[in-house]
């Protein structure tokens, strides 16, 4: 059987995959020998849309950057077996390395299985782990395997999974209910691993959750998904129905005594709901404001009953661990950090996408080895890890290994896996301000250090990038950062200062340049920029004057032009437009 598989994750669809699929459909629908299907996200976002051509289960050719106009040629090639007509779409050898250098466990099926077909998942060994658990293991034994594996929470904090499971297992329920909750409120800007897993391999998540549910004795499982992920919700919804129909969910799962059903709760847009207690408040239909710990969710969580919350990626590792044994998982990684970690690599890299690597490899391995380094020939400056809770690690420290302890030592955190790479044109004060803008807007507003503290941090950063920074502002930021970290109620506030503290630590010179010289070394902060036209170089082509939205450029054709500084809005369009390098910025 010849198979054409179109990668339809959200990114792929945004890049045009659904249009490619629609174009292919009428061309192959009559052919009994060809099966057209979809898969999720392979993780090579920079090459989307991607179309894989299979002969049974063997990948024959991978076509990349496919357009809907390529459909006839693809159909023709598949039918004839002569691929020369689509040669221009073949994936390059260099790009194959993007996948071959990875070790995929959580993502093992992503971009391969059809997320809308439970049987495709089962063909690849799906639900074997769950069956094994339900037929031959006690919950304690399951927890022991997880303990052996060393699996730690992939949501960012890195808390040992077995410990949480064990606490929830031991906790007494008043009503007899216990809950297993999956945190799929992937709010870190720049992170999309969880979305990819749910969209691409929803049964893997369901299986992992059911194993967890069995281990803690949960009576119900809930997946809390961001509302911004409509496709993930849709695919998971249908996967849940399929799993229920196939006896993998609901009463007497796989014929065992164990019963547990699952439902989806769509979030409504609040980053703070990634925090366990806020998530629980949100599940209960309240404002998502964090609650005090103790009591911990394991004792009194959702509906005041014992609850266990894990992240999507954590669960995605569980079926593999149960199928392959905890030792095999623990064999990967470092002393402190076992297994693999998925990263969403974005920013100024050449090859952005999803990367899963064993713990212990270096940041350089990921950013340069797999993601191909910086695009447009620019100089790499830093990488941002862990989103608004994380920090910026400078290029000089790229030999840091991926390991909870090692990353924390830099001032950043492992985080959920967002990895945004920055080049020389990114202002580090601007990045800190960007994150504080985010946390200020996302602060729930309950506690003073976070509600007012993040706001004041943001205001101080704003005045610095606008050229109104004062001597002593960096020290003031540091003092306030410490207080906000020390006395905020929940993780959001406790980590919100990290982007500031790390940029001060590694890029103090950029802060000083803004404050003392009123200059932005990255040429990014509009208020501190001055655009000029070099008379010698200007040919008087008038392009810049026509592009200028503020009509701030004077001059007649074939004569040097001049920018009127009082009218200039510093948008940079003249700079981008000039073909003679006559526009300079400082």
């Amino acid at each position, binding site marked *: 059987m010849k198979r054409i598989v179109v990668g339809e994750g*959200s990114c792929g669809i945004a890049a045009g995959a659904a249009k490619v699929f629609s174009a292919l459909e009428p061309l192959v629908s009559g052919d009994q020998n060809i099966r057209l299907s979809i898969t999720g996200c392979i993780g090579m976002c920079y090459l989307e849309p991607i179309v894989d051509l299979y002969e049974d289960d063997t990948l024959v050719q991978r076509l990349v950057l496919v357009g809907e106009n390529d459909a006839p040629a693809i159909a023709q090639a598949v039918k004839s077996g002569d691929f020369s007509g689509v040669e221009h779409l073949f994936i390059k050898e260099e790009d194959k390395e993007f996948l071959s250098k990875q070790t995929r466990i959580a993502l093992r099926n992503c971009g391969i299985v059809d997320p809308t077909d439970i049987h495709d998942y089962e063909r690849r060994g799906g639900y074997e782990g769950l069956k094994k658990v339900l037929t031959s293991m006690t919950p304690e034994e399951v927890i022991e395997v997880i303990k052996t594996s060393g699996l730690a929470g992939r949501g960012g904090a890195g808390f040992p999974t077995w410990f949480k499971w064990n606490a929830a297992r031991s906790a007494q329920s008043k009503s007899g209910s216990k809950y297993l909750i999956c945190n799929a409120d992937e709010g870190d800007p*720049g992170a*999309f691993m969880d979305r990819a897993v749910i969209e691409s391999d929803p049964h893997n998540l369901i299986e992992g959750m059911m194993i967890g549910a069995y281990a803690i004795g949960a009576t119900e499982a809930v997946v809390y998904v961001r509302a911004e992920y409509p496709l993930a919700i849709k695919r998971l919804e249908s996967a849940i129905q399929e799993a229920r129909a196939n006896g993998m969910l609901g009463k007497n799962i796989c014929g065992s005594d164990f019963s547990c059903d699952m439902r989806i709760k769509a979030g409504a847009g609040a980053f703070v709901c990634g925090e366990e207690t806020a998530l629980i408040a949100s599940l209960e239909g309240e404002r998502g404001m964090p609650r005090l710990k103790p009591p911990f969710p394991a004792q009194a969580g959702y509906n005041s009953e014992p609850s266990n919350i894990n992240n999507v990626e954590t669960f995605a590792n569980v079926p593999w661990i149960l199928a392959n044994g905890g030792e095999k998982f623990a064999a990967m990684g470092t002393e402190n950090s076992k297994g693999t970690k998925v990263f969403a690599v974005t*920013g100024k890299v050449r090859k952005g996408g999803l990367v899963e690597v064993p713990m212990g490899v270096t940041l350089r391995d990921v950013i340069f080895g797999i993601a191909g380094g910086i695009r447009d020939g620019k100089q790499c400056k830093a990488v941002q890890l862990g989103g608004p809770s994380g920090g910026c690690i400078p290029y000089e420290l790229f030999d840091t290994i991926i390991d909870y302890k090692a990353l924390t030592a830099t001032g950043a955190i492992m985080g959920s896996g967002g990895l945004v790479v920055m080049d020389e044109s990114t202002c580090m004060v601007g990045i800190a301000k960007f994150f504080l803008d985010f946390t200020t807007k996302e602060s729930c507003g309950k506690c003073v250090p976070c509600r007012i503290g993040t706001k004041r941090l943001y205001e101080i950063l704003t005045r610095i990038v606008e050229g109104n920074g004062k001597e002593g502002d960096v020290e003031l930021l540091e003092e306030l950062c410490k207080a906000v970290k020390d006395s905020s109620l929940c993780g959001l506030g406790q980590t919100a200062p990290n982007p500031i503290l790390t940029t001060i630590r590694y890029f103090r010179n950029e802060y000083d340049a803004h404050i003392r010289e009123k200059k932005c070394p990255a040429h990014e902060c509009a208020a501190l920029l001055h655009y000029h036209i070099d008379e010698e170089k200007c040919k008087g082509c008038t392009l810049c004057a026509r592009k200028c939205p503020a009509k701030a450029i004077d001059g007649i054709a074939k004569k040097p032009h001049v920018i009127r500084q009082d009218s200039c809005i510093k948008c940079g369009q003249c700079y981008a437009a000039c073909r003679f390098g006559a526009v300079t910025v400082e």
Partner: protein
Amino acid sequence: MCGCKEKKSDLSLISDILDEYAKVPGSLITILQKAQEVYGYLPVDVIYHIAEATGNSPAKVLGVATFYTQFRLQPVGKYLIMLCQGTACHVNGSERILAAISENLGIKNGETTEDGMFTLSSVACLGCCSLSPVMMINGETYGTLTPDKALTILKELREKAEKEAQA
């Protein structure tokens, strides 16, 4: 925000939703989400109605509705432009896109054009970071934007809507 001046909404449109969820504990957010799907936003009288049906005080329902960014208390335009403000989009120049759209449409973030065509809303990360900068309009994602490209898309949408209106 005085309730009395609002026009009356057809409350029967959500009676099925309320029948299903009103008495299920913890369903307030779900009810609000479904009500918003029905009305396009959450009119004040609908909030009252939901409060009454669920046995919550209106203050509590309003508190929940204003906590989450998904909920809107004002109607939105024909096209809801959700401009991603994620890190990757920021690094790749989303602020310039925001400025360009803002200038072109003459509205600020959160506002709707006078003709009711566009509502501009900057949103948290859409998770399409590799295509950054990204915007989503009525469910459709547009990636690798430049200010020019973004404005062209809006122009096309407006032309499409005008053609529809003529037809």
